[in-house]
């Protein structure tokens, strides 16, 4: 671990020095074309202008590729794709013509985490094409990378090393898998590592690893016959009063405490209330933060749902019983310093198939990379 930190620190410094020393502005025409690519937006906004600009950017020379990767900084998700396609086209043409990309420049850019994760990822892929073994050698530097793609690949490399140790040295394999677990932020990778550790006799506390919000107050059922309850505003959406007795679907209902013991953090209304159809339930939790900060609320749910943070609706979705997975929906939110209030509405429809029984959700709060943020109280 210490070695990783020192490598990271050294590489950041190297990157910073090189960027400061080597930054060369793009020619005006090329820079202007890049700006037009970066001006694209929702619903095809800017597409017509971007088309001609793309042809200009795609003509870039090999020596201009690092600067184009830097120019991906600040691009929106649409523009990143325009940029990527142009850069790859330019690289393909330049490579076919025998022009060399500067491995050194790409490495400098790759290591500088101030740049956009997507631009850095593309730099890594270009390095892979130039020198696959060099790319592999660089990977351990990205075990804590802010970019999920680089980080995932670095963790995968560590997992492969652990797998190679399994037969020869069980203790070493456990240590390496534990390292990988500490760095991993992707749910499927975490589950895979946990299974491999279990096979080696080392049990992983998945609930703690994922960091679910486990303690809730629940209330329900309210009516959702004909799926009308999804849109209907029930009292908890207007005013949260945990002492109130409310008119439910079949009589008065009250809030009650609920703590999930599931290693997957499932808040199960069927178990907590009753197995019902055409109903809606609410769950609320206090979430304490030491500071005001940005975060993500990550939800898995195969019912209809809405989420409010501090009284503000974040998102909702009325799809029923298609599928659910960990971190299925990732929603950026702002947490206040101190107490924050999470409110989840979870609606069950009237399907009767065996695969339509679930009335539940799982929720965690994380940073942008998926590192769990746990309530401080």
């Amino acid at each position, binding site marked *: 671990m210490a070695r990783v930190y020192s490598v990271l620190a050294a590489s950041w410094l190297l990157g910073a020095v090189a960027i400061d020393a080597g930054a060369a502005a793009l020619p005006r025409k090329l820079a202007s074309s890049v700006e037009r690519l970066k001006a*694209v937006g*929702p*619903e*095809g*906004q800017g*597409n*017509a202008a*971007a*088309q001609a600009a*793309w*042809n200009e950017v*795609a003509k870039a020379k090999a020596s201009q590729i690092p600067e184009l990767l830097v120019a991906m900084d600040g691009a929106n*998700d*649409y523009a*990143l*794709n*325009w940029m*990527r*396609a*142009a850069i*790859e*086209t330019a690289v*393909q043409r330049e490579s*076919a*013509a*025998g022009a060399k990309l500067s491995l050194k420049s790409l490495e400098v850019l790759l290591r500088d985490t101030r740049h956009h994760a*997507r631009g850095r990822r593309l730099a890594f892929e270009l390095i892979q094409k130039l020198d696959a073994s060099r790319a592999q050698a660089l990977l351990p530097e990205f075990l804590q990378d802010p970019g999920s*793609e680089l980080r*995932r690949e670095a963790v995968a490399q560590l997992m492969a090393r652990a797998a190679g140790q399994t037969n020869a040295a069980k203790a070493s394999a456990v240590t390496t898998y534990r390292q990988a677990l500490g760095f991993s932020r*992707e749910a*499927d*990778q975490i589950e895979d590592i946990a299974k491999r550790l279990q096979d080696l006799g080392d049990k992983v506390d998945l609930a703690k690893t994922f960091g679910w919000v486990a303690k809730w107050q629940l209330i329900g059922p309210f009516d959702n016959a004909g799926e009308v309850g999804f849109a209907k505003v029930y009292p908890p959406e207007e005013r949260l009063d945990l002492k109130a007795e409310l008119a439910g679907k079949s009589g008065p209902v009250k809030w009650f405490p609920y703590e999930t013991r599931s290693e997957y953090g499932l808040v199960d209304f069927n178990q907590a209330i009753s197995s019902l159809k055409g109903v809606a339930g609410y769950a609320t939790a206090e979430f304490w933060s030491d500071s005001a900060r940005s975060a993500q609320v990550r939800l898995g749910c*195969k019912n209809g749902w809405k989420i409010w943070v501090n009284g503000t609706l974040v*998102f909702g*979705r*009325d*799809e*029923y019983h*298609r*599928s*659910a*997975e960990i971190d*299925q929906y990732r929603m950026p939110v702002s947490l206040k310093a101190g107490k924050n209030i999470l409110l989840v509405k979870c609606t069950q429809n009237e399907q009767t198939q065996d695969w339509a029984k679930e009335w539940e959700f799982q929720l965690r709060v994380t940073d942008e990379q998926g590192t769990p943020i746990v309530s401080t109280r």
Partner: protein
Amino acid sequence: MKLSLLLTAALTAIAPLGAADWTQFRGPNGDGLSSETGVPVRMEPSSLTWSIALPGRGLSSPLILGDKVFVTAGSGARQDRLHVLCFRVTDGALLWERQFWATGRTMTHEKIGAATPTPASDGKAIYAIFSSNDCVALDLDGRLLWFRGLGRDYPNASNSLGMSSSLVVVDGVVVAMVENDSESFTAGLDARTGVNRWKLDRPKKANWTSPVVFKSPGQPNRVLLQSALGVTAVEPTTGKIAWDITEGASTVPSLVVSQGRLVIPANGITVVEPGAGDAKPKSIWRSAQLRPGTASPVVVGGRLLTLNDGGILTCADAQDGKRMWQLRLKGSFSATPVVAGGHLYCVSEDGRVQVVDPSKAEGTVVSELALEQTVIGTPSIAAGSLFVRSDSRLVRLGGTALR
């Protein structure tokens, strides 16, 4: 470089002239039929002209335009890397590849993935859409014409089991069915810029069918949208509804147009015939005995064929729906059969290509070839060949190999 350019020029020069292109899901007319000749009837190991590894999974059919094969793929643990690839027909050499980051949700059922819908082409560009509802237009040399993130623009437009509706392009409009349980719509995108020409609210119900272009002599083109509610015909340039049938229809296999009639997977099979001037279609016949599975129906030589997921191929008289014969094929099926030279090419999920002669009193399997790869997507026909895309490879069967 000079050598490769010369080689490319030489190969372009020897590409078959006048060969029928395969421009969309189920071919140029969206009916699974190809006018191509010389596709091997007797499939055997030597029929394999080339087989190349793909960088990702997929179910989309390859498109073939002249000497180029285009195919989409999805990669990454979350299927969030989207690929459009162009290969040379003659030898399978990669001509170009473009990659994109998905901007919409990529979660799908494990059987499908990002590259489930088939692209479409108007001969000038390739229009590709993915399960994430990212839609991209590239010219035939890989130049990006436009990009749309329909799942980003409309954030509740997704299906947690995945989206599969293929594109059609007609009258300068790319029609994308983004129909799902939540933010459900079909959009007509300007083929030149990708901006919305129209956007039509659609039933809030998951839908995996693909649009079909209905062409009728002397009549304006219509795009047929099949859903759980039935079939809706819209004007391609405006999205205005011309007529609709509201008796329900399947949300998996798609209708096929044959001899001016619509063969609809609805209550088994329902056949209707649209009238002139957007008159509401009249019912011709209906049969509950002809129930297709995932594969869409196909009509060849006056015979209607449906294939269920278990491999039962049922043949009926296309005029009245009277059942003629049934044939059990080997394996499970998701791919729609395609037709060349009067023969049906059926590919099972375990990659067994089975060539069926449907023209006799009983259907017969003429030949079969085990590719030993998972094949969920519908094959394509062009250049005297059958192109099969498996979960990991693009395979050309028949045609002339580069020697």
